[in-house]
């Protein structure tokens, strides 16, 4: 703003700037980019294979990825706050193993599920404890806990798969509400709840502030440690829910459930425009990115694209999307 302007002129200038700005902020966002990408990829996939373009098939295929997508929603919050949790897939496995072992021991399903969710909270608490009380960097802590939890799962169930759950529990992906599979409904509900929570509550705003500048947030009086602990607990809880969903879908549980899942989950969060530096990101972005991943993965598999090509594409995607997001955010500052 030029200093020779009178305040009145400046005010007028600002006002006329406003409507145009709003229009631009809606169009030029990572979320819109993802939406366009989804449409593009869906079109491409349909041209690649005639078997792709079938809503029932896509919805059914999405159930393979929905567990990870659910955790990605929670991870988005963690990353916005400036931390990261790489132990998510291991927490899924361990909580699922806790559930299976409890069922095998004869405990009733609701209690076993509670035990499983409880174990998720305990694991999240350990992560949160090490990060907030001992002030260790979350990246190494969660690399350590990812190994530890996976190892504990291995100790708990050994090499075997534990199955034989009652039939009403198994096959959650085959149940639908309307034409939509239950896991997808759970995912969409969680997205709505978390999205509203992040954008409309005080805690949500505080999460952004912590991510943007933690020291400043502390000075302003935000209970940074409490919120971070809460986020890690949520991460553990969410992983446990996803673990139960997977146990139901597969009908059995092994210690190596979801190995490598942490990478996919981080990919979804990054694709959704979350900045790894913290302070930026939306649930909507992650939500759209999940669907994007579903479409790309399903499209590639049904077009018989080999696993090498799929890995290459996913790796490239991550890099390109992060570059694009970063460029966008840097431009935004100017």
């Amino acid at each position, binding site marked *: 703003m030029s200093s020779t302007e009178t305040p009145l002129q400046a005010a007028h200038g600002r006002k006329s700037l406003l409507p145009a700005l709003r229009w631009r902020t809606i169009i030029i966002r990572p979320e819109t980019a993802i939406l366009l990408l989804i*449409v593009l990829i*869906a*079109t491409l996939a*349909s041209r690649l*294979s*005639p*078997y792709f*373009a*079938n*809503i029932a*098939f*896509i919805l*059914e*295929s999405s159930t*393979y990825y929905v567990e990870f997508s659910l955790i990605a929603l929670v991870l988005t919050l963690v990353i916005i706050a400036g931390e990261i949790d790489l132990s998510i897939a291991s927490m899924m496995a361990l909580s699922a193993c806790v559930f299976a072992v409890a069922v095998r021991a004869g405990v009733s399903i609701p209690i076993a599920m509670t035990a499983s969710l409880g174990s998720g909270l305990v694991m999240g608490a350990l992560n949160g404890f090490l990060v907030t009380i001992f002030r260790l960097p979350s990246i190494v802590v969660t690399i350590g806990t990812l190994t530890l939890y996976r190892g504990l799962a291995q100790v708990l169930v*050994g*090499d*075997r*798969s534990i*199955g034989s759950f009652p039939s009403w529990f198994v*096959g959650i992906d*085959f149940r639908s509400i309307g034409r939509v599979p239950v896991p997808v409904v759970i995912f969409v509900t969680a997205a709505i709840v978390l999205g509203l929570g992040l954008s409309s509550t005080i805690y949500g705003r505080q999460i952004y502030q912590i991510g943007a500048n933690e020291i400043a947030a502390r000075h302003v009086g935000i209970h940074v440690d409490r919120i971070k602990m809460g986020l890690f607990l949520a991460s553990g809880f969410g992983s446990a829910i996803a673990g139960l969903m997977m146990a139901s879908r*597969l*009908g*059995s549980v*092994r210690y*190596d*459930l979801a*190995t*490598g899942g942490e990478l996919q989950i981080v990919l979804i969060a990054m694709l959704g425009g979350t900045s790894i530096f913290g302070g930026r990101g939306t649930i909507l972005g992650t939500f759209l990115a999940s669907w994007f991943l579903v479409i790309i*993965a*399903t499209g590639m*598999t*049904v077009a*018989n694209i*080999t*696993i*090498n090509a799929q*890995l290459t594409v996913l790796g490239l995607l991550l890099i390109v999307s992060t570059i694009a997001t970063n460029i966008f955010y840097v431009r935004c500052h100017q």
Partner: protein
Amino acid sequence: MLLKKDLLAIVLAGASLFAATTTTSTRISIAYIPRSTGNPYYDGVIDGFRHGCAVLGCDFTTIGPATSDATSQIPFVAAQTQRGVNVIAITPNSPDALNPMFDRARRRGTHVFSINTDMPGNQSHREAAILPVDFTKIGPSQIELMGSLIGYAGDIAILTTTTDAPDQNLWVEDMKRVLAGSPKYARMKLVTVAYGNDDPQKSTTETEALITNYPNLKGIIAPTAVGLAAAAQAVETAKKVKQIKVTGLGTPNQMRRFIQNGTVTAFQLWSPYNEGLLAAYFVVGLEKGTIKNVPGTTFDVPGVGKMTIGKDNVINTQSDLTVFNRSNIDQFHF
């Protein structure tokens, strides 16, 4: 910003989402899903399949997951079902995790066959199983081979894969039974069973532990290609080739070096190529109606011989194992 033709493409894509899927093809289509890609053993099966299809005039594709964990094949089975292939041939990574997928495929008219391993307890979910050899012969043959190498006296150990693998467990149990039951092996003692998880590093450290813990060890049986290669390597590095005889199941390409330098005198296997070839003939014959899937039926496979469908619709490609040693190893290239 969107061009008219993009708009048209999007509309079409949207409309086609509600279309049903159909296949129109007069050639029989077969999809083979191995345990994982990059495993040379399954490459042999694929070669046989492919050549069989080239002769018989059917469409053959193969696509597989990157890892062999229990549930990695699920999206691939779903995709092939969606594509409406006539036959899904698969080497399942789990005896039961894929049951619902198989049932769905069969309801849609796709035939499901298990290749190289069966699904104990879950045979009703597949139509037939093609095994490489009579599995009940493996245990006794291996013990006999081991005995002939060490003069039927001394301590031996078994290096296997995971505690969960049904075929490995079967063979190990058979070996124990044969050792205990026959006076011929009375002077041979099984000191332990080690688990290498089909991982070269783990198999190597387990073998090294065997060498350290059992100074009187005379022989190691590794009925797994990865384990056998690792054990041979470890024994060679420890310079204990004269004291410890290593044998088991392995592929000629992997073991050639060890045969040539004397680390391993002999090992056994069968022909995965023949197995794939037989599978192609069998499957095409079934589709065309020239072979009936009923125990007791016999049919011919050029280059392999006369096959009989056994109990539970199991076909054994050959009845006895092939022994590989210096005299014949150069004839084989898989």
